[in-house]
């Protein structure tokens, strides 16, 4: 063996992850991306519980993207009970989801990635001579938190979204404040995103397959068909025919691959924009042009720039949605529904990519089966493949220095969330 790379507990990601690389020769590189978070077997804990408890528990899979885990569970159960929300409630849900994406993207870009760009190890080091910048980052993060807090009760583990709607809808006064916050964030977001757009994320030569929700309007978060970048599309009910789990004994998370392509794939902001770039609004397109970002793109490192683009895009979208909501009357907080034995599936876009929640519910409203496929778990195999491609290229070019840091940067670009990934174990899936 000519080299072994071991990175334990990668810094500035959510959760615990190790990378092991064994290089025998430049053509023979083995990469293992291992989730090291203790498994909390959430899928099993859900079985036997009342359907109303499910979103409370799934929200706790991840403190960074708790919003989408709550909404996904709520939506899957609504799917099982054939519940259709009013348009007003749908808009409110979408705004909550956007708030969650903004929270997560800010945390990832500004707390985890920015130090890489500035060649520092921690955002705290910025405090020494760039205190205004740190204060600005904190300000926009607080804005994103306040959007979620005002619309859903709490910025971490939101309270009000429940099956059928919300326990409480925000007052008109609160909606007007949210509108102001969105406007204020819009003023500041371009400046805050500039470092991620200016950086040259050229990376390395790699071919990736991308999977994301697709719709004919915008970049969808809560509905749409599932699209594969090779051209295939399928409805959410058929997810198991396309996505299959792989059990790796070195990782506490399941890994996944696409059956149809028999290979790994990438989900996340880059996948969303690769699949929906034609639907971006004019302003975001202009930014793409200004920074010479042309979709589709392949390198996973560009995921960072895509999250920045998404912040601009989602703020524009949120501005439209909140105006629309203020024009309507938001009076009904919940629609009526009946419990019935059924099967419910939700496929949504978490900040880190495609997220699938699937439940079976009996006539008493108790869960009899659950399956949750998180974005990071889906990305793990592709992270391994991309690191391998990078190392083969680097070794062939004779590079030997700083390989660890470059590998870490690739991992961080995926914005992995091991808390989410290392949870789901079924005897039936093995």
């Amino acid at each position, binding site marked *: 063996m000519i080299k072994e790379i071991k990175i334990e*507990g990668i*810094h*500035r*990601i*959510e*959760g*615990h992850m190790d990378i092991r690389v064994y290089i025998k020769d430049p053509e023979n590189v083995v990469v293992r991306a*291992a*989730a*090291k*978070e*203790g*498994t*909390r*077997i959430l899928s*099993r*804990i859900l079985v036997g519980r*009342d359907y109303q*408890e499910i979103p*409370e*528990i799934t929200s*706790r*899979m*991840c*403190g*960074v993207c*708790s919003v989408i885990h709550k909404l996904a569970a709520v939506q899957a159960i609504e799917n099982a009970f054939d519940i259709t929300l009013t348009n007003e409630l749908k808009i409110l849900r979408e705004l909550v989801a956007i708030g969650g994406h903004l929270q997560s993207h800010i*945390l990832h870009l500004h*707390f*985890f990635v920015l*130090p890489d760009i500035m060649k520092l*190890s*921690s*955002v*705290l080091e910025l*405090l020494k001579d760039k205190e205004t910048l*740190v*204060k600005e980052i*904190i300000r926009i*993060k*607080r804005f994103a*938190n306040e959007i979620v807090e005002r619309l859903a*009760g709490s*910025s*971490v*583990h939101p*309270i*009000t979204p*429940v099956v059928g709607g919300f*326990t*409480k809808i925000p007052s008109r006064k609160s909606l007007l404040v949210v509108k102001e916050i969105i406007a204020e964030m819009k003023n500041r977001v371009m400046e805050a995103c500039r470092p991620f757009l200016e950086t040259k994320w050229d990376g390395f030569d790699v071919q990736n397959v991308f999977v994301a929700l697709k719709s004919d309007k915008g970049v969808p978060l809560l509905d749409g068909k599932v699209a594969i970048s090779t051209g295939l599309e399928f409805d959410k009910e058929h997810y198991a025919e396309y996505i299959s789990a792989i*059990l*790796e004994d*070195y*990782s*506490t*998370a399941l890994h996944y691959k696409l059956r149809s392509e028999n290979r790994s794939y990438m989900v996340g902001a880059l996948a969303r924009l690769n699949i929906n770039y034609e639907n971006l609004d004019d302003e975001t397109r202009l930014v793409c042009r200004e920074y010479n970002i042309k979709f589709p793109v392949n390198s996973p490192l560009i995921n960072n720039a895509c999250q920045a683009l998404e912040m601009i895009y989602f703020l524009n979208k949120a501005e439209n949605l909140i105006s629309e909501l203020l024009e309507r009357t938001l009076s009904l907080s919940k629609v009526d529904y009946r419990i019935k034995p059924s099967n419910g599936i939700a496929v949504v876009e978490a900040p880190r990519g495609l997220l699938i929640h699937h439940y079976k519910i009996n006539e008493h409203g108790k869960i009899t089966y659950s399956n949750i496929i998180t974005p990071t778990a889906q990305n793990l195999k592709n992270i391994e493949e991309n690191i391998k491609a990078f190392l083969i290229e680097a070794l062939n070019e004779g590079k030997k220095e700083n390989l660890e840091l470059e590998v870490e940067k690739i991992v961080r670009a995926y914005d992995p969330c091991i*808390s989410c990934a290392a949870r789901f*174990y079924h*005897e039936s899936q093995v």
Partner: protein
Amino acid sequence: MRNKFTVGIFSLSSCEGCLVQLINLDDRLLKLLEHIEIVDCRILGVKKDYDKMNIAIVEGSVTSLEEREKLEKIREKADILVALGDCACSGGKFLVKDFDISEARIKLPGSREVFRSDPLDKYVKVDFYLWGCPVNKDELFSLLRNILLLKHVKERAVSVCAECVLRENNCLIELGYPCLGPITRGGCSALCPSNNKACFGCRGLAEDANIDSLIEIFEQHKIEVPEYLRKLKALVEAKKSDKRD
């Protein structure tokens, strides 16, 4: 001026939502940073050389031997250890109310052991507990401030129900919801009931919790008694008889 307090921030198995709450202290975190020096925090990318630290803040529950060893090492180096959030305080049990995990005892991939989710104080001494899922930012800030000021820290002895009454909310039990406010440790300012949502007890049992009486009140109001409340009762009784033995 005295030296800054050295602080390590650690995470075992958890959703890291409590760490997010710590970062969400925002300007108050900057204020704290004038008085503390963070020596270890993976999520913020800080790893300094240190043999001792004044305060260790530990989030998450112990789910493996590796985590237990990590926790024991942290304890050795720390003067004060703070359990941050429900997972650290109770192993996350109050949220999932899963008191019988033996039914889920299975071998898991990537780990040689069977599943467990233990609170920190099963293995080490804990000096301060911060309950909640996630922890409340005001409570977190005031605990840290009080530690820095060397002030005596006392746990508030009120239930969520008492805090809810102070906020003049409508009583959810009277409206027919199975609210656990009367038996749950306060400190959250009745966040969920104030959002029309029944308290589900994430902060653990209040000191004087009377589960029997709550079940009686539910029955009086024709509220279906949730299964987890009966499990909770069985757990408390088992603990009591443990103590007697």
